[in-house]
């Protein structure tokens, strides 16, 4: 195409994109004005047990590191510590009403949904204590 028609083409595309953006913003504005924080602030429910296996500040910063490395040691080498076992975390931190760490007000889910960090552990891992507590009884 010639330079002139290419410029026209680009200008049309740019105008279309701007129009689309303005339309989307206009449609979204009322809802944004209504709810200043669409995601509820995390509500940390006190867990069972006296204290966590590590202190709170350490956990806030490093729980991901613990999970990432411990899981390889558990899966590949068979090292199963109670202290750093995900099933053990779930046993204490499961919500009293829901019995889970996911869902509304769940211990893991509430911080993760507020921070916008995807949490896919519980696509595979059990999000409620169950047989783990029964195992402890045996």
């Amino acid at each position, binding site marked *: 195409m010639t330079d002139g028609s290419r410029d026209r083409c680009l200008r049309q595309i740019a105008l279309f994109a701007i129009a689309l953006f303005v339309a989307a913003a206009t449609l979204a504005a009322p809802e944004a004005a209504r709810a200043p924080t669409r995601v509820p602030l995390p509500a940390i429910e006190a867990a069972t047990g006296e204290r966590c296996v590590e202190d709170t500040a350490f956990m806030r910063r490093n729980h991901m590191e613990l999970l990432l490395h411990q899981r390889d040691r558990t899966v590949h080498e068979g090292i199963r510590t109670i202290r750093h076992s995900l099933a053990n975390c779930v046993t204490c931190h499961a919500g009293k009403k829901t019995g889970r760490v996911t869902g509304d007000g769940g211990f893991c889910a509430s911080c993760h949904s507020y921070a916008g960090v995807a949490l896919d552990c519980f696509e595979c891992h059990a999000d409620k204590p*169950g047989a783990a507590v029964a195992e402890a009884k045996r």
Partner: protein
Amino acid sequence: MSVHHGRRKFLWEAAALAGVVLAPGITLYDLAQGRAPEAAAPGTVRWGLLVDMNRCATGCDACVTACDKENGLSGGKAVTDAQWIRKIDRRDARGLVRSLPMMCQHCAEPPCVDVCPTGASFKRADGIVLVDKHTCIGCRYCVMACPYGARSFVHEPVTNQKPDVPRGKGCVESCTLCVHRIDRDRIPACVEACATEGHNALLFGDLNDPRSEISQRIAAVTATQVRADLNLDTAVRYQGL
């Protein structure tokens, strides 16, 4: 407050009891090559199964039901449902039907481990072949590669998993030889169920220990591998094949 106190007290008591029970057990197991859960799986051990087909009953699927229950499988038999163990009815030329359980054979030379691009399919030091579901991308190459059809792909979202057996949509899985039980010095659920049923067709033990019951039986009887021609050195052996 009293509920928390009661629960806390119970957990401490349970832990103390477990410690008291386990302590002598750990010592004894050291002698018998057992291990504490916090220790790594040893490379000196090779876990295996011996299936006695003379005792396996046609029409009985106690091992399958026990596996489903232990691992949180749906128990469904659609071809999209995961089956970690299945009963195969084998008919010979004269029409005689014999039955046997087929599960992951935990090969020493596993084709599934060779083809996995991320190394998610791997063989543990004690010979158990597992899928690391943190690394599995769901490409299903291992399902193509397994000569025994032992692997299943999870086709739907999974809920109500057992805490010891994480499993989810999009990953491949197979019999883990109940690794979560073995690591706590118990035997696989299928072996236990077969014994409870009274058939005693399944025997679990350490293939590397010449004094173990399984090694002694394999030395005494003719125990063969399925598809022995493939030279995969399976840990599951069949007697009466």
